[in-house]
């Protein structure tokens, strides 16, 4: 029973990025793209014997770094393709694969094909996912799964069959000590308990989860997701990056690669209160214009990119989608309002009161303030209308948007918080339970009721 004192392992496999680490830590130990590069069956084994093991060591070092982007960029291509020596000798093709950043660089070569086993939050390719987990555990975390409890995450509305599949892999292939599968939105709520604005540690609230591909608005009542009211917005990090890129191109900047646009997004963008006022601020104060220096891979020549109005226009597409797209026109505050209005009436106050942000695309400065202001406007208008129609006084609705410092990896951090508690292991299903009852045991997990 050596696992009793080992920290649990928290794995958050998202569509874009995977977050790996140990419970009790503040941030995940590894963040890398949820990508796997497998050897192509038709490809001849040519690269295997060429590279010596020492060069492989050198090359692999940078790929273990934490990534902030789910996109593959060309700079990774500059590194040579790594080869797996073992595969050439033993004919063990199924071991010949890479995950994460290594996969992105391996896929630049001819003999590997890249695939993303998770689509829209759900596992699409179980064989790839199993190998992805295998490498995550043995190559990155370097742990024995039989000594650790695991906390995995799943998207809302994940079918129970998928959970069973996960349990089969974790208990039968990896022989892990215990397993808990949590809904991402619930973990994001738990992560917000670190904010000073949160007074009661309730699991009721609206989670706005914005990653690279899509933004979800998920209402959660008492730890249960209200599935019928979930709404998706097709605007997220990648759209912001593309919008910045189009603005840079319109201005004829020297370097308009996606990578540059993404760096500008991460370093310079913020949310303003009103775009016309912000344009005028830029006119009065030229300090607002920034410069971004692109470092060339060869470091021979530096390019200077002027950063202008995209600083506040880019995140504005959440609040004014019309400026970037022509097919989706509903602003985020309106979508949040519609989501909460679609929920049972007795939880709506709690949902308005605790709106929690999660994911990298909610990290813009003042994102929460703007959302709170716009949403308050919508809610107050409706209250005023109903008061004037009914002639009675409303007790009012308190709208509160919570932003906190763990927002970027909120789901992982929430998992880390829950999995470090003493009660966590009691909520898990153990290997013994699994052997006795079977995979259907993971259809239900009891909720954490932390008070």
């Amino acid at each position, binding site marked *: 029973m050596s696992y009793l004192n080992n920290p649990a392992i928290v794995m958050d496999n998202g569509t874009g990025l995977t977050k790996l680490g140990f419970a009790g830590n503040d941030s995940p130990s590894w963040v890398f793209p949820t990508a796997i590069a497998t050897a192509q069956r038709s490809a001849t084994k040519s690269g295997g014997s060429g590279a010596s093991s020492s060069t492989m060591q050198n090359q692999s070092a940078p790929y273990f770094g934490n990534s902030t982007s789910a996109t593959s960029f060309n700079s990774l291509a500059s590194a040579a393709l790594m080869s797996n020596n073992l595969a050439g000798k033993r004919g063990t093709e199924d071991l010949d694969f890479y995950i994460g950043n290594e996969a992105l660089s391996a896929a630049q070569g001819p003999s590997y094909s890249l695939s993303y086993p998770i689509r829209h939050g759900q596992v699409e390719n179980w064989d790839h996912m199993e190998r992805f987990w295998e490498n995550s555990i043995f190559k990155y975390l370097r742990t024995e799964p039989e000594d650790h409890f695991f906390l995995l995450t799943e998207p809302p509305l994940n079918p129970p069959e998928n959970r069973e599949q996960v349990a089969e892999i974790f208990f039968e292939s990896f022989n892990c000590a215990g397993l808990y599968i949590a809904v991402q939105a619930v973990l994001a709520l738990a992560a917000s308990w670190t904010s000073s604005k949160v007074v009661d540690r309730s699991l009721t609230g609206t989670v706005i989860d914005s990653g690279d591909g899509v933004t979800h608005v998920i209402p959660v009542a008492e730890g249960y997701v209200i599935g019928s009211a979930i709404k998706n917005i097709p605007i997220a990090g990648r759209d912001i990056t593309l919008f910045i890129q189009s603005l840079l191109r*319109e201005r004829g900047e020297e370097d308009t690669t996606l990578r540059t646009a993404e760096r500008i997004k991460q370093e310079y963008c913020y949310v303003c209160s009103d775009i016309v006022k912000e344009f005028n601020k830029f006119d009065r104060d030229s300090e607002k214009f920034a410069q971004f220096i692109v470092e060339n891979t060869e470091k021979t020549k530096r390019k200077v990119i002027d950063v202008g109005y995209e600083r506040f226009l880019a995140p504005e597409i959440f609040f004014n989608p019309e400026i970037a797209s022509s097919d989706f026109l509903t602003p985020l505050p309106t979508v949040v309002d519609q989501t909460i209005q679609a929920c049972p009436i007795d939880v709506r106050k709690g949902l308005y009161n605790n709106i929690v942000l999660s994911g990298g695309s909610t990290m813009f400065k003042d994102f929460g303030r703007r959302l709170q202001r716009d949403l308050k406007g919508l809610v107050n208008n409706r209250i005023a209308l109903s008061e004037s129609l009914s002639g009675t006084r409303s007790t009012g609705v308190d709208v509160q948007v919570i932003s906190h410092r763990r927002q970027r990896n909120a789901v992982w951090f929430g998992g880390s918080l829950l999995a470090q508690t003493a009660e966590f292991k009691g909520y898990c299903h153990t290997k013994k339970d699994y052997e006795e009852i079977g995979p259907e045991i993971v259809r239900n997990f009891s909720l954490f009721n932390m008070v």
Partner: protein
Amino acid sequence: MPAYNSTFAADAQNDRMVGNVVLLPLKTNFRGPAYQANSDYDIIDECLDLFRANSFFKNFEVRSSADRVLIYGILFVNECLSQLRPSTSYNEALKLLTNVALDDFAVPGTPGFPLNNVYSVPVQNHADMDLLKSYIQQFRQELAMRLLERLYMESKEKPSKFWLAFTRRRFMNKSL
């Protein structure tokens, strides 16, 4: 939040109207029919302030007759910008834009104007149409001059590239 509307109140009883276009007062030294504006902020300043924000919008709800002047102003600023190159100096630009402002143009409501579903003017009434035409002429000249001030605020050598970037944007998907 939709596109920005004009803050100028138009009142069909007191203001001078031609059809559903209001002839708002302007601060200008160019000769024309417009009354001198009393306040510091006139419709031309507003056009220049809202130009960059509204350029991103394809939909615009016309709420008042002042909005029709605003639409014309924003489309005209776009027209001016399309005449300039990144290297055009202030003196060249002054010449270019003066010519653009004085060029023959389609009066709203007449054939050849792109947004005739928004404007309705009494085409038969020659006195009114002449008034509208000379008002727009004056409006164009003043707007072109004040646009130049903004474009060359930083240097007289070349226009601000941050403004020129809006050349390709099409407010309401239209151009003059």
